[in-house]
């Protein structure tokens, strides 16, 4: 039993060992990136969830003016990656927007 364990243990690190080496590989490719660094000089500002900042516990579907910044011109719900809303608030937000749409406070699709 003990022998098996001993034999297995070296085996596991063995395949694992090349991986760390492989890891630096792409990392090594990245140092090839430094010339690109000039191009990516702009720093993306970290988006913060608007509802978390204001400490909102409940998103009211009746307040269309609160929800309207989170829909596109054509009426689509903006994704999280655009608005920076956190997962939890986005979940509440989609529900609120869909309710507001049902009672004609927000459009399903903008009319032409």
């Amino acid at each position, binding site marked *: 039993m003990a022998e098996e364990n001993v034999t297995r243990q070296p085996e596991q690190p063995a395949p694992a060992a090349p991986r760390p080496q492989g890891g630096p590989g792409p990392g090594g490719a990245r140092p090839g990136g430094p010339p690109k660094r000039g191009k990516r000089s702009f720093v993306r500002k970290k988006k913060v969830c608007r509802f978390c900042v204001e400490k909102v*516990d*409940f998103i009211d*579907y009746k307040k*269309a003016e609160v929800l309207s910044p989170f829909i596109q011109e054509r009426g689509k719900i903006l994704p999280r990656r655009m608005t920076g809303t956190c997962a939890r608030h986005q979940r509440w937000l989609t529900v609120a927007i869909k309710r507001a749409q049902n*009672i*004609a*406070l927000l*459009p399903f699709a903008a*009319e032409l």
Partner: protein
Amino acid sequence: MEERQYDLIFICRPDTPEPDIDKIISTLEHAAGEKGAKIEKTEKWGRKRMAYRVHKLREGVYVYMDLRSSHGEVVKELERRLKVSDPVIKYLTVRVDEELKRQAKLKRHRERRAARRPRKTAPGQGAPSGAAGGGERAAAQS
């Protein structure tokens, strides 16, 4: 059973005279009373522009109601009445008590955390003020 809370919103045609709307509201209140529910408050939001056309209408008279009931039968009855009544072009009932409960819970959590926090932040606040004091001293020296 625990009491449930519903939001009931309906939209009337914009050309509905005011007394007719009041009549709808009173019939709904009566129907709710019969079923053992209570309408806590009624708000007339008035004429509002709708986000899209409903029955070829661009505007509607919004009425909001806050309904308390211990069972969902009332909602069925009220929605049936709204469906039947001619001036009503759209209605929506939403159960909100669970969300309100969640809100209350989160608020409680936040308050508790806020009550606990000052002790932690106090030393943190002390340090920057000391640093600022040092900065002032430096400025005074220069």
